[in-house]
């Protein structure tokens, strides 16, 4: 089965900036691939290259077996694109917007109407469908935007940071919608800055930074490389940081990191609740004042730290 996306050595320069610097990526069919990376990593540039919106300076990029430079029309027929902003017309109804896009995919008026209706139903937008998009909330607009990328019945869906700027509830609603799509057999490539989003939605994650692939694997594989979860302890006493670090060091697993600036100490753990208990017991015996203790997912910075070494993580943090 042809891979959905095959990218080899992609390069794209904007003046002096190398947005893409030898990016390699393969997306197999039948899955969701998340491209994870900080701002400036090259995610949006990659999506634009896939959507045939720009010309690459070097490298080969094939989408569903077709070269994006040589055969852009065919690629466009099979793609759906939802960018960072809701690219819908506020002075038209939801239904009109979707019908318009469906027509632009070559569907007849009748087919377009059916496609639009189906997608509205899928995304839970039937009720407001005949109201002007002007009246929609931000979350609804994003869902409609997602709908516009679907109405052409794409084989590959490109979502560029689909939940950035959304409130938590809209975020979850959008995730549900994306998951439903995947069940129906659409291949999805999404870009995100958030590890939890990649974790929730993706079968496969590719981490990029500075226009290059840094790591790839399933969410479980990648998290294992970081040590799973992270215990984070906050204090407002700078002098207690070292003591906390020693206490946490006794909990076994992962290196302990002290962040002086934000007064935090973190240690990577397997994610089991009993390790948190052990940490709390260890901290209780130390003579320290603690503001907060949390067991949480690794942040992007921590994933980077584990995968690439401290200097790269600083770059990532600075770029974010």
């Amino acid at each position, binding site marked *: 089965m042809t891979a959905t996306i095959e990218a080899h050595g992609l390069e794209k320069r904007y003046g002096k900036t190398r947005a893409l610097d030898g990016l390699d990526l393969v997306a197999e069919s039948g899955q969701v691939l998340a491209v994870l990376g900080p701002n400036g990593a090259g995610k949006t540039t990659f999506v*634009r290259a896939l*959507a*045939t*919106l*720009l*010309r690459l300076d070097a490298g080969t990029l094939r989408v569903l077996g077709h070269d994006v430079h040589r055969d852009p*029309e065919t690629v*466009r*027929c*099979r*793609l759906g*694109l939802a*960018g*960072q*902003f*809701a*690219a*819908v*017309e506020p*002075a*038209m109804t939801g239904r*009109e917007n979707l019908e*318009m*896009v469906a*027509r*632009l*995919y*070559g*569907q007849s008026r009748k*087919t377009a109407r059916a*496609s639009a209706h*189906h*997608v509205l*139903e*899928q995304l839970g937008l039937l009720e407001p469908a005949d109201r*002007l998009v002007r009246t929609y909330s931000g979350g609804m607009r994003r869902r409609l935007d997602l709908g*516009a990328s*679907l109405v*052409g*019945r794409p*084989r590959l869906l490109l979502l560029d940071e689909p939940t950035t700027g959304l409130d938590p509830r809209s975020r979850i609603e959008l995730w549900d919608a994306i998951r*439903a799509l995947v*069940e*129906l*057999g659409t291949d999805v490539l999404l870009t995100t800055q958030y590890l939890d989003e990649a974790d929730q939605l993706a079968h496969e994650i590719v981490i990029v930074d500075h226009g290059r692939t840094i790591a790839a694997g399933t969410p479980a594989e990648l998290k294992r490389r970081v040590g799973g979860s992270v215990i984070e302890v906050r204090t407002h006493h700078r002098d207690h940081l070292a003591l906390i670090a020693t206490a946490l060091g006794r909990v076994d697993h992962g290196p302990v990191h002290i962040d002086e600036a934000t007064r935090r100490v973190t240690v990577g753990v397997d994610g089991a609740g009993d390790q948190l208990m052990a940490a709390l017991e260890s901290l209780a015996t130390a003579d320290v004042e603690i503001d907060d203790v949390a067991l949480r997912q690794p942040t992007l910075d921590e994933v980077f730290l584990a995968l690439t070494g401290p200097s790269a993580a600083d770059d990532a943090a600075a770029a974010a």
Partner: protein
Amino acid sequence: MTAIAQTLDRSIEPRAVGLVTSTLTITRRTALRYARTPQLIVMATLQMSLFFLIYRFMFGGAIRAGSIPYVDYLVPGFVATGVLFSGIGAAVATAEDVENGFIDRLRSLPIPRSSVLAARAIADTAILALAAAVTVAIAFAVGFRLHGGLLEGLAAFGLVVLFGFAFEWLFVTMGLFAGSAQAAQGMGMIVFPLAFVSSAYVTVASMPGWLQVFAKYQPLTPMVGAVRSLTLGSRAQAELGHPSSYYIARALAWAAAILVVSAPIAVARYRRS
């Protein structure tokens, strides 16, 4: 969920779309936008009419335009420069479409590249023709008269629309390069010297020397002259100093030049961005 899993029938293969269908579909969107955003039309028309009446009644008494009644002198100028001002709207709308990703979506669709810009040009030209028609109607109501024949009057109107179309491409190009709606608005300020330092509202001869130079060699002056010479009929040559053919030839040359330079730049920019 499984009922909805009656998946979208993928046996219907998307096919690339023809130029006419895609252009019409996108034009429809712009038309609906204008129709359903009353502020756009009402404000534009109201503003235009208000300024027209101000010029006609307030300044009219004070401005000398040879032996021609000022209203007859003003209307061709006002209507012709009106197309410039509506062009700013086109630049801003284009910049907005770039900003909010609408252009990106359109470019990712299997439609001909030219249809998006063609749709923009058609829709905006139709809007400006409408606005011009309204202004002309008001003009007639306050005393404007055609001194040439009706045919010449229609030709004059046609020229206005043609000039609007040519400038439209200039404004679309501006919108594509602007980067934001505000920047486009700023770039649109170029309209002011073009509109006012011309023969549109006052005679060139009445301007200070250094402004006269600009007025004489910029496109609006012959354009306005062309429209005016057609509406003034037989009096034209005597009053304006040149036969209408003089103005029309120059105006058309300018329009062609603007079109020939702007259109390819707009298309190239659209493809590349």
